[in-house]
């Protein structure tokens, strides 16, 4: 321990504190943004810094957070998944489709036991993820295009199943995890926290997690090291689809209904959370820790803007500008890092 500390110091002295800071810019900038936002809203509105509101923010970011777990893997591999929101929607609708609905719901559905409905929903999102994986690795379609097509495919599945109607009932387990709470803590927050933690552990402590960073860091070198790059990329696409599927099931319970297009805003929110948190769009840098910071930046921003008197239409513009600023920092941090390494 002492040795590594002195090592650290020696390196810092050699490279200069400035270079060290520049190297860490990716992690520092989002955290500073978060602190500034919290400080600003606490100052601007007395209703913002309350325990109740903290609970609100946590609940509000949970669905995004679950989607962002898988998306973090994808972006770390220098790929992208645009089908997350669509897959979430389709999976939520699948689970409702196989649940007995009230008589006034006009959907030709297939009521099954809750466990079977959940299993089929998992199967559905896994298959969609596998299709993404197949298109990207075996056929060689860029992930941007492949998942764009998947976005339409999953939306099509949703549309065919509900046919413009709305379903309300989901299996009891899903209803509890999505809308229930234990000891005052919403289950959905607990699920999001557990999945984020699991994602972090996988990325940090497992061989697969290392491969994700290695493939994102230098794909060519990963291939020349004899790694099965296609398998790794295929796996992250499946992880992403399954995360989205879980978010979709719980989201449907959380919102109290399953219908088309109800997850549309989550595509941008999830990508924004990962990128605002500082995970590099070029792959290989970042992680779940960054994603959590990004989630809070977005959550605090969305929530805080409701607490201050501001034109609700202006809010959309403000969100866009903050996202742009984060992207600029992301790309800039990459460049700074590269110069710091030279």
């Amino acid at each position, binding site marked *: 321990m002492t040795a*590594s500390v002195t*090592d650290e110091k020696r390196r810092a002295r050699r490279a200069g504190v400035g270079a060290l800071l520049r190297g860490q810019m990716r992690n520092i900038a989002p955290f500073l943004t978060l602190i500034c936002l919290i400080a600003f809203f606490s100052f601007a509105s007395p209703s913002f810094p309350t325990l109740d509101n903290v609970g609100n923010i946590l609940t509000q970011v949970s669905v995004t957070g679950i989607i962002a777990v898988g998306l973090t893997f994808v972006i770390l591999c220098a790929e992208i998944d645009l089908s997350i929101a669509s897959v979430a929607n389709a999976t939520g609708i699948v689970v409702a489709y196989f649940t007995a609905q009230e008589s006034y719901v006009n959907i030709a559905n297939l009521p099954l036991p809750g466990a079977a409905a959940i299993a089929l929903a998992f199967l559905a999102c896994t298959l969609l993820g596998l299709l993404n994986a197949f298109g990207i690795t075996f056929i060689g379609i860029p992930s941007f295009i492949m998942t764009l097509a998947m976005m339409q495919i999953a939306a099509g599945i949703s549309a065919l199943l509900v046919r413009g109607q709305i379903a309300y009932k989901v299996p009891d387990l899903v209803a509890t995890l999505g809308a229930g709470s234990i000891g005052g803590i919403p289950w959905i927050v607990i699920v999001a926290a557990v999945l984020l933690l699991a994602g972090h552990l996988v990325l940090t*402590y*497992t*061989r697969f*997690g*290392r*491969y994700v*960073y*290695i493939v994102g*860091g*230098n794909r*060519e*070198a*990963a*291939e*020349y*090291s*004899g*790694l*099965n790059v*296609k*398998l790794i990329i295929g796996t992250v696409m499946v992880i992403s689809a399954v995360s989205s599927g879980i978010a979709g099931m719980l989201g449907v319970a959380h919102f109290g209904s399953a219908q088309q297009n109800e997850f549309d805003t989550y595509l941008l929110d999830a990508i924004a959370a990962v990128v605002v948190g500082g995970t590099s769009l070029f792959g*290989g*840098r970042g992680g779940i820790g960054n994603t959590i910071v990004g989630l809070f930046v977005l959550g605090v921003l969305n929530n805080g803007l409701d607490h201050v008197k501001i034109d609700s239409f202006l809010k959309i513009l403000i969100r866009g500008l903050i996202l742009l600023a984060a992207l600029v920092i992301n790309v800039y941090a990459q460049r700074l*890092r590269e110069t710091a*390494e*030279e």
Partner: protein
Amino acid sequence: METGAPVIELVGVSKSFGGVAALRDIDFVLQAGEIHGLVGENGAGKSTLMKIIAGVHGDYVGELRLDGRETRFRSAGDALAAGVGMVHQELSIAPDLSVGENVFLGTQPVNKAGIVQWRRMVEDARRLLAGLGLEIDPRARIGDLPIGLQQMVEIARVLFSGARIIILDEPTSALSPPEVERLFSLLRRLREDGRSIVFISHFLDDILRVADTVTVFRNGRRIATTPASETRKAALIERMIGAGHEELGESYRADIRLASASAAPVVLQASNLSLGRAYRDVSLELREGEVLGLYGFMGCGQIELVRTLFGKLKPDGGVLRIAGTEVRLASTSAARRAGIAFVPESRRSMLFHAEPLYKNTSVSALERISRLFLKPAREREMAHAQIDKLQIRPPRAEALVGSLSGGNQQKVGLAKWLSFPPKVLILSEPTRGMDVGAKEDVVRIVRGLRAEGLAILVASTEPETVLSLADRIMVMKKGAVVREFENEVISKDRLLEAA
């Protein structure tokens, strides 16, 4: 052929890169209506000189005279405007555009509104190409043409931009014999029109067949200029590598005794491997505890061959056996599992610069030390074992690989394969860009691994590398194995002659 006046004259030209002299006090004359061959080893200075003439390097000492007047080109555009054009080894065509568009790349005929006049372009291109004896449809997609024709279209483009001095860098390395013939007749035709051609090549036979004059470079100096009809291949090689009395000549001419094929078991066996235009009918056997050298010029197919052996490229035909069992390597990870290791020629494609040393050295062995969870302590242990074995500096497992020197990075690229030794180790250009000390390290390391029983294949375009490392040597030329040396005494000049 008209007896030309000098079109280009260089007087006392020197050029250095970061304090290292690339050209020293060069005098060079190019006549009108001559084909001038330029030969020399890698790094002898021929390409640097031509880049000065073509305006790529504007920063040099000395004088450049064009038609007797002193001038200095500041850019390639500058030189082209004055009539000097260069065709590089890597063609700069736009493969998805038509032949006509490539001929007029950037200078398409347009009307007043700026709209491209297609019909005029196609007609002009057809006429101009026919004038060079090329019957090519200007509307054809250029990427669909054979390499030889693509190259001629590029030459045509340089000509139509007004060049009367054309510099060709290694034009024949990717061409089949009939294509070479075609190129040569085009060059002779241009010579009759009074244009001047500089022809840089490693292929001395080609030079001697087409050139009027040959100039030899060595170590940044012009060694000799002679009429092609008055010299032979052996004499050129001797001048390229330095005769006995030259300062470095001794080491270059030294005889090296090659071993005979050992009786050790064959680890890797390739029979009649072929891959498209890259190489064909390559057979080789690699035994335990030996180093097989693979030598050939750039573009001879060895880069593709070693990638096939590592599962990165798939052969069109032929059989690969490992320890007697036929294998089909579907991917690089299949090759790794079969016990094959590969260190590519570029450090970019073997290292993770932003990661610490220990994560680089463990990447190919992770599967064997951890099923699910990483074992960082074990990884650091492995890193330190390799740091000691290969003497990597600084000796810190946490050092970012991007911060190491080039030679040490090269060692890391090798180290990642050695923690769990493979059966076969393939090294591509293991000493490229290294100083003498680092090269000696490589020789020592490779000898050590051979003594441990590893089967090693060293592929290089540098004769010294192959000669200093190999027990047996195979020479590749234009995609085929043309010579095998074993159990005999060999020297660099014999190796060069075979290629």
